[in-house]
């Protein structure tokens, strides 16, 4: 029973898609979310401080 719940979708993305029209651009909300996330992750990857490593120099 748990497996059935696990294997089904908790959020149902079927049904009619939502789309955004902007000038000649038409993009699905889903794709827009993916692209915005990519840009956000890229910016965060560059801006977030990277932990310092100890030791070892040449």
């Amino acid at each position, binding site marked *: 029973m748990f*497996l*059935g719940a*696990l294997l089904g979708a908790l959020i149902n993305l079927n049904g009619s898609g939502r789309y955004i029209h902007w000038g000649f651009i038409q993009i699905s909300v889903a794709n827009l979310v*993916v692209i915005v996330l990519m840009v956000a992750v*890229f910016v965060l*990857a*560059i801006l977030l401080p*990277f932990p*310092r490593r100890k030791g070892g120099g040449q």
Partner: protein
Amino acid sequence: MSIDTGTPAETIPPAAPPHPSESHQWTAKVRHAAESAFPPDQLLPDRQPAYMASWIYVFGVLTVVSLAWVIITGCVLAIMGPSWWHVSSTGHFVNSLHLWSVEAFFFFMVIHLWGKFFMAAWRGNRRLTWATGVISFLVSVGAAFTGYLSQQNFDSQWISTQAKDGINSTGAGAVFNVLNFGQMLMWHIVLLPIGVLLIAGLHVLLVRRHGIVPPFAEGGDDTAGTVDTAPTPAGEPA
């Protein structure tokens, strides 16, 4: 009284074999070339240049492990065949893993590409590394495309009947028939994975060979002086 046992041929020490670089053997030559190009401590290094201090550097390895999950989940789908995921909830779940690992693969690969672009990572004789990276991307798009064709559902019906026009316009439709499920499935699970692995593998080996590109000089506009055009010694950045 002593017995003359003579000197059997086996006790004569053999002549020293030629140094691999001088050997005419294919095996020795290949091994020597591989060892020169990829010394073990460069193939699997335990140190990296201190300038690699940014999260942007993890997207290459994230791309590679995403590809690993694409292949692993694809292998599970292959065990049960292409129709399994339509009739089994476990199969559908594995298909979901396969789809999301593909989304993750492209997500991380494109961020990796953006990072490498802004680092101008082709500098210092790394143009082939850049080129194999771009080609990996293009071949991966092809591999994903044949995957969408192999779904055996409405989506694959639509994608195939639309894509045929683009592909036919180039003449490739004479051989590459996107409406032929059997052919597209074999491209997807045999030919294109081999292509992706070969090119991505070459890409990773080139990264190991030439190292990670150093930063731009301070100020970013160092035009003074000259640079040696001889190939980079293996492993050392630039």
